[in-house]
């Protein structure tokens, strides 16, 4: 595994987006992972529609009817992948633009699918496995506890204590080996995470969190998706 790796440098990550005042983080994590996988499969970086997921994805928990993806009220990346697999794919952002509200009816147009899911998998808690899947399969959909993110301005976040109760969906796009942690007086490896709060938040829209101890639950729910190869 390379010591440092960043899919942004390989052109597999679209611009930072903004979910606005809507609990749709899960849809941005899902589109980000599929955008990367589609780039690996086709060589083309296409921005995909979160609004299609917000409006049309009502995939439910197989064992708990009523617990479903619910637009601005929340959802889960894995069920969004399941929806995308069943629906056939996601449309382009520009064909189904984001509005940040979930009162609209579904306007999915099958003839305008821009990327499709061939399969998706859940990765174990092992950080080497997460890094290997990141390098091999593209950016990964991950969940995290966002408590420190409300006040985060920059640097490598490495809190002494952080809840592992997952409440936010984001995209893992890379990792670095040398974020300096002064109080720990040593270089700390970190994950590079693309968030969906716009470019004015954090480090131009990105969050760095140190690796090693499943901090804030960042290793707990990691999924990879593979896109259908187009001829």
């Amino acid at each position, binding site marked *: *595994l390379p010591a440092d790796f960043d899919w942004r440098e390989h052109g597999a990550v679209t611009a930072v987006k903004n*979910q606005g*005042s809507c*609990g*749709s*983080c*899960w849809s941005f994590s899902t589109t980000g992972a599929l955008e990367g996988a589609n780039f690996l499969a086709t060589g083309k970086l296409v921005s995909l529609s979160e609004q299609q997921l917000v409006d049309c994805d009502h*995939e439910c*928990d*197989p*064992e*708990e009817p009523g*617990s479903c*993806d619910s637009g601005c009220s929340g*959802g*889960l990346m*894995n*069920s969004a*992948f*399941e929806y995308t*697999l069943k629906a056939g794919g996601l449309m382009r952002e520009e064909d189904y633009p984001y509005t940040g509200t979930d009162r609209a009816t579904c306007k999915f147009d099958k003839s305008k699918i821009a990327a499709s899911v061939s*399969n*998706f*998998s859940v*990765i174990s808690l092992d950080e*080497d*496995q997460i890094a*290997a*899947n990141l390098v091999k399969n593209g950016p990964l959909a991950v*969940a995290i506890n*966002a*408590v*420190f993110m*409300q*006040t*985060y*301005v920059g*640097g*490598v*976040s*490495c*809190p*002494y204590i952080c809840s592992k*109760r*997952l*409440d*936010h969906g984001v995209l893992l796009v890379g990792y670095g080996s040398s974020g*300096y*942690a*002064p*109080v*720990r007086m040593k270089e*700390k490896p970190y994950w590079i995470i693309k968030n969906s709060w716009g470019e*004015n*938040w954090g480090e131009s829209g990105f969050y*760095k969190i*140190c690796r090693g101890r499943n901090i804030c639950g960042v290793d707990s*729910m990691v*999924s*990879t998706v593979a896109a259908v190869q187009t001829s």
Partner: protein
Amino acid sequence: SDSLIRQVVGGADDLLGAEHRHFELFKRRYGKSYGSQEEHEHRFKVFRRNLRRAQRHQKMDPSATHGVTQFSDLTPSEFRKSFLGLRSRLRLPSDANTAPILPTED
């Protein structure tokens, strides 16, 4: 010994003044406005609490920088309700696989 210690900086009034200035800068930078004087005062109180929260986060997370963000006028529950959105209680759908173990040496 008390007579040897003379307070040379302002007390609570100065801090409040600084927090007001912070809040004005925050509103200007993020384009915030509030519909009524009551809402404005409420948001200022929340902002002050979040300034202290950022200080606590800074102590607990010294390798990062914590401070004022676009969410500094929101309570933690408003922040969670409006800007997150993960339903972690959902279980894995039927088509989810377990990723194969990849080599991580050389």
